[in-house]
């Protein structure tokens, strides 16, 4: 079947199989390999993408579900001039990753939170991010980055 959706700001129509996950389509067909696959059980969050601004597990969401919706992957976060999103910059500034495998999902999950609530407290950040696993950093650098980006995004408002 055909699905039409907005992918990282561009209207896109793809021929898909109904059984295909969004992760298969994005990684395989669109070569958006920032969508990472790990637990395949909606536990780890490494495949997190935003669908209509909400974080979802692309490994367990059918591509069929994004008909008429907006899909954002990590590749769509920097602006057209290549300027990084404040979260991306904050992750660089705080060394919020090591292997980097969880990073796209972390950044997108955090973006969903800050888009909704850029005044999130630490407790709210932890509650929101608790479904995204990182095996390298011990989380503190990620928390610091989200705080920094939240500050910056509040400043822009």
């Amino acid at each position, binding site marked *: 079947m055909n699905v039409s959706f907005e992918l990282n700001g561009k209207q896109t129509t793809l021929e898909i199989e109904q059984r295909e996950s969004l992760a298969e389509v994005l990684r395989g067909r669109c070569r958006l390999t920032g969508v990472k696959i790990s637990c395949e059980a909606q536990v780890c*969050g490494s495949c997190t993408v935003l669908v209509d601004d909400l*974080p979802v597990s692309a490994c*367990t*969401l059918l591509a069929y579900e994004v008909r008429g919706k907006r899909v954002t992957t990590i590749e769509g976060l920097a602006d057209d001039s290549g300027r990084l999103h404040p979260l991306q910059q904050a992750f660089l500034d705080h060394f919020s990753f090591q292997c980097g495998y969880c990073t796209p999902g972390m950044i997108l*999950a955090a973006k969903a939170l800050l888009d909704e609530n850029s005044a999130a407290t630490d407790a709210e950040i932890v509650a929101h991010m608790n479904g995204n696993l990182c095996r390298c950093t011990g989380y503190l650098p990620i928390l610091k980055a989200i705080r920094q980006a939240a500050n910056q995004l509040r400043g822009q408002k």
Partner: protein
Amino acid sequence: MTTLSRFEIHQPTCALEASQMLAHYGEEAGIYAGGTELLLAMKHSALNYRHLIDLKVVPGLNSIDMRNGSLEIGATSTHRSIERSPNVQQHQPALAEMESQVANVRVRATGTLGGNLCFAEPHSDPATLLLVLGGSVKIESAAGAREIPVSELIAGAYASNLQPGEILTKITVPSAKPTHRSAYMKFQIHERPTLGLGLWLDTPDEGRTFTSARVAVGCVCPFPTRGLNAEKLLTGSHADVEKRLSEAADAIADAADLLDDHEGSAEYKRHLIHVFLQRVFRKALGESLA
């Protein structure tokens, strides 16, 4: 990546058509309401449906309304939409709070309450709370519609009492009255909770006496279970009830088929019921848990 085998998605226009599709394809078909549990089970070949009937496209099934003193929650309402619904927050805050803590943000964004109840995963949160809030479900099929309490929907672990061709379309939850006190708490070690405990109390006098009580436990047993004997112990004066909490906890544990598994021994789970009945009681009454 583990890939799903081929299947066909069908888009019914109404619940009746969905029911007809389900009847038509029989065992080869399943209702697709959110997919969080279903697709996982299909990936592992625990389920092998060739046809998925997409209930989410049926108009009106994701609405959340207040009608006749009750919340009417469409089966395909996501956990997130229930958590965020002003109606739910206002009229049944314990439900909104429980929904805000289901699994993680991604599961809440796609998983639906109807799907959750029908899938009957033993470690899920909602059914346990709905048991004490007096929730009921509307079930539709070509043969007509019926409404049953949530307790009658539950048949066992991963098993509901839906008959072939039947579809759960709506969850009804009576709104909280000023005399009601309710809370849900869980204890979590792994990804899925080890214990879920829901408590509902009716107190005409700001918590000095309890005229009626409902309590249910989940996760420690194959399916969420009411502690009917415990409920009797939870009525009476605050002081008496407080004294009987330990006895009530044992009654809950006795009612549930406590499992010895890698979440914990039955003995430990019984102990947790004791701890959390104390806590959920205080929480329901708005007392500090510190």
